[in-house]
């Protein structure tokens, strides 16, 4: 469908006016949820009372602890990026381009950690590598003793720089992997083959051909890693506090929750600084990406010849398995064990294991409310956000041209903003006069809506792209109005893609800690809030039970959604007209 505006002839569509109005309202609602909070914090920080005033900046930046938090955040972001990006790309290369992969399973392996919310992984690691009660602590110390090294047990603690970075890396690698794997998937294999023919070694081939050829993906995954390093709250909140390593996200949280009255102004200023820094990085990345170009992406649908790793094949596979073990299996196992224990300890006493912890917080009114409400909130927000994204991408595709492009760009904006900053924005924008939503479910809903719209629209757009234009056009030719076309053709065909997006976002919402930390409270508790409360009280076995529930629920939901959403028709037929 092309732009009718070119000829000045409008297609006669009075009957669709109601639909168009709904769609426009929907888009406005989403953009209000995204841009109103951003606008409000920009105004608060830059033009308080509508005139430039930098007193707030002076007080904010004069705090001595801030410098430490900034320094720590920068160190973590830098080290994490330097480790995660090469590792994620390396994994992607192994799985996509070499014979280290086996079956379809290996393509999924590296993304398994995405299904386990970072907070569950962090709690799991706490149980694994706490210097006193961690399951790995005693064996590790034993190991070091046996080789004649006597070391201070606390130097193996996960509550340390090393542990913090380990978890940031475990969290970031799958995100890099996803971006890099997609790029490798569409990379013209003849490049690598040519390199191999000209006698380059395997590693040399990886470094000198494969990586440069996907440098666009390298750049964007590095940016992604930096953004999440800046904004991640769960890992530093649970591990960094004990290690006395403060980072910006925790600092912002404290400004709002550990002081009275809350220093909202300072939080806003820091949020704006973060947005600017990320904006600059984004611009730099765009510059680099566009100046180098990415002409090598061939995009032909042929399966490349996989590079043979020879004797390195099994070491590579073991590396992949080890990674899944560290990110998902070990933490989940630790969570389960602790959740069955009356209290957290490093030995397992089998006759004391029971489900008491689960019953206990089910009997607690506040905890139960948090879980039930979180579940509802997650189902509701996820459904709404995925549906809105689906509708917007279908409409985008139908209108085409610049409007489609802008719709795509604008719905991605929140992904460039740390959630914790965004939550501050939502709090400031909607929490007080004239909306007074502080402490309500609605404010959390609004925040999640905006925060998860990028993921939802990425899922929806790729689903819409896969449905051939002619399938939609055929529907109209055969007399179906846009409404019928939407319900009978477009929606059913993108449903599998939406279901996958739904599952992913659901797990993200259930284990969400950033926005929950800022926006939830005793009046509107959610799981994230409960986790922080349990952690502060030191009720670890209940924390473990909660972590297990999150892990289980996420796993089950994802599986069900993927099975239900599985297409009955071959994907080849969907892409009928390419």
């Amino acid at each position, binding site marked *: 469908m*092309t732009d*009718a505006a*070119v000829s000045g*002839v409008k*297609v006669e569509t009075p009957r669709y006016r109601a639909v168009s109005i709904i769609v426009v309202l929907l888009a406005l609602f989403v953009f209000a949820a995204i841009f109103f909070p951003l606008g409000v914090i920009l105004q608060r920080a830059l033009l308080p009372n509508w005139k430039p005033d930098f007193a707030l900046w002076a007080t904010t930046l004069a705090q001595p602890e801030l410098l430490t938090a900034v320094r720590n955040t920068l160190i973590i972001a830098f080290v994490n990026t330097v480790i995660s990006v090469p590792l994620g790309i390396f994994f992607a290369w192994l799985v996509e381009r070499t014979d280290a992969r086996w079956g379809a399973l290996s393509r999924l392996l590296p993304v398994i950690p995405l299904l386990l919310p970072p907070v569950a992984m962090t709690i799991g690691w706490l149980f694994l590598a706490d210097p006193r009660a961690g399951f790995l602590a005693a064996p590790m110390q034993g190991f070091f003793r046996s080789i004649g090294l006597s070391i201070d047990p606390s130097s193996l603690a996960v509550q340390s720089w090393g542990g913090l970075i380990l978890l940031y890396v475990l969290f970031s690698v799958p995100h890099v992997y996803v971006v890099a794997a997609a790029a490798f998937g569409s990379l013209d294999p003849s490049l690598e083959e040519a390199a191999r023919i000209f006698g380059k070694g395997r590693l040399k081939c990886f470094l000198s051909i494969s990586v440069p050829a996907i440098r666009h993906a390298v750049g964007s995954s590095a940016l992604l890693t930096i953004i999440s390093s800046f904004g991640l709250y769960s890992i530093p909140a649970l591990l960094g506090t004990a290690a006395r390593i403060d980072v910006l996200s925790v600092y912002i949280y404290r400004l709002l929750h550990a002081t009275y009255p809350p220093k909202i102004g300072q939080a806003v200023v820091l949020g704006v600084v973060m947005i600017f820094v990320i904006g600059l990085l984004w611009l730099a990345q765009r510059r680099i990406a566009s100046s180098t170009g990415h002409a090598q992406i061939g995009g032909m649908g042929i399966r490349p010849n996989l590079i043979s790793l020879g004797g390195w094949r099994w070491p590579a596979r073991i590396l992949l398995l080890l990674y899944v073990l560290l990110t998902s299996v070990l933490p989940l196992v630790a969570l389960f064990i602790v959740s069955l224990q009356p209290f957290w300890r490093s030995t397992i006493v089998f006759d004391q294991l029971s489900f008491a912890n689960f019953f206990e917080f089910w009997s607690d009114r506040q905890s139960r409310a948090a879980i039930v409400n979180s579940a509802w909130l997650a189902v509701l927000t996820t459904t709404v956000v995925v549906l809105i994204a689906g509708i917007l991408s279908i409409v985008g595709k139908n209108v085409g041209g610049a409007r489609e492009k802008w719709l795509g760009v604008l719905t991605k904006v929140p992904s460039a903003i740390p959630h914790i900053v965004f939550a501050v924005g939502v709090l400031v924008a909607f929490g007080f006069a004239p909306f007074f939503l502080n402490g309500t479910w609605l404010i959390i809903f609004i925040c999640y809506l905006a925060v998860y719209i990028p993921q939802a629209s990425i899922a929806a757009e790729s689903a819409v792209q896969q449905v051939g234009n*002619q399938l939609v056009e055929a529907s*109209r030719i055969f007399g179906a109005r846009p409404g019928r076309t939407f319900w009978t*053709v477009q929606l059913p065909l993108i449903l599998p893609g939406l279901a996958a997006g739904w599952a992913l976002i659901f797990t993200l919402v259930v284990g969400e800690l950033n926005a929950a930390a800022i926006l939830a409270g005793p009046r509107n508790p959610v799981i994230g809030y409960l986790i922080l409360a349990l952690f502060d009280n030191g009720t670890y076995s209940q924390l473990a039970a909660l972590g297990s529930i999150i892990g289980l629920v996420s796993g089950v939901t994802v599986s069900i959604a993927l099975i239900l959403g599985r297409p009955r*028709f071959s994907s080849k037929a*969907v892409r009928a007209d390419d």
Partner: protein
Amino acid sequence: MTNSSNAAGAPKRTAVQIRGLRKVYRTRGRSVVGVDHVDLDVGAGELVVLLGPSGCGKTTLLRSVAGLETPDLGEISIDGKLVFSSSQKKALPPEDRHLGMMFQSYALWPHMTVFQNVSYPLTSLEPSARGDIKARVHDVLTKLGVAGFEERFPSELSGGQQQRVALARALIGKPSVILFDEPLSNVDAKVRRRLRQQLRDLKQETKFSGIYVTHDQEEAMELADTLAVMDAGNIRQLGTGREVYERPNSLYVAGFVGEVNFWPAELVGVGPHVAHARTDFGTFEIIGATASMQVGQKGHLAIRPERVNIGAPGAPVADPAPRVRGKVREVVFLGARCEVRIELPGAEVMAWLFEAVSHRSPPVAGGAVDVIFEPGSLQWLPA
């Protein structure tokens, strides 16, 4: 407005009328002409075939009729009803044009069964207009030889079966016009021939009107009531297949429809019935001069290879037609015919010999022959 009421109408109504159609694509500051200055009529029960090379605007024209593209200028009526007019700023959406269409990719909906696919045009109608859906679907599927596949999904059918289902879906609603966009290009030659045959039978039977896009000239000749040869967004010639083949109005059309020998030439004499054209290797008489031909005009002298006659050199001249002595370059045996390339002074000619295959011994490479140019076989193609 259905086909039956249309067929009953006393004067022959036009199914589609296109006037002054123009569509320019504008992408990233550049503009590409899709179609321009196109006039076309499709009579009731007539199948017009659009033939042309890739990128000449066939799909654009078809999609404009369908309402999938909005043209910049012109008017389109379907079944006497104005569906697009740039001057009246009117454009009906595709669903209000009452069309059938067969897409190149079939565009069967993969999540619906064959039954759901084929009945879709009916279920889009008001309940009162639907009739007995089951019976109608069964009818059309039987007619096309794909009954019994109702509960299958398209991915469970072969390419040829999918095509028939797509055709069934295009036919079932008894649309005013059926549009075909290279519907047979995705199957092998045998299936294609069978489907063409079937399409002709169906047209005899149901008398649908249609516009059919292809760049296969054999297919075009076989199916067309009227053939429209397109070039760079324009219709270069319109006529029956025979007219276009035998009296092409340009070198472009002659070359696109079949093979042709041609040489640069100049008109040296134009009479009421005959004209004379001079080429590098002689001056020849052409029968059938037209008003547009003038002495001094430059253009091409052309002859179809099957109209080229050859004779043994020096054989008695029963035929007064001009002869030119030439040397056989190459003889290629092609089963039904022999293809002979002959070198003339400063030119070359290709001849297709049919009798040579069965009766006479064909010429041999290197031998000398006389090429005979019958005045009735030669054509003048203005530059």
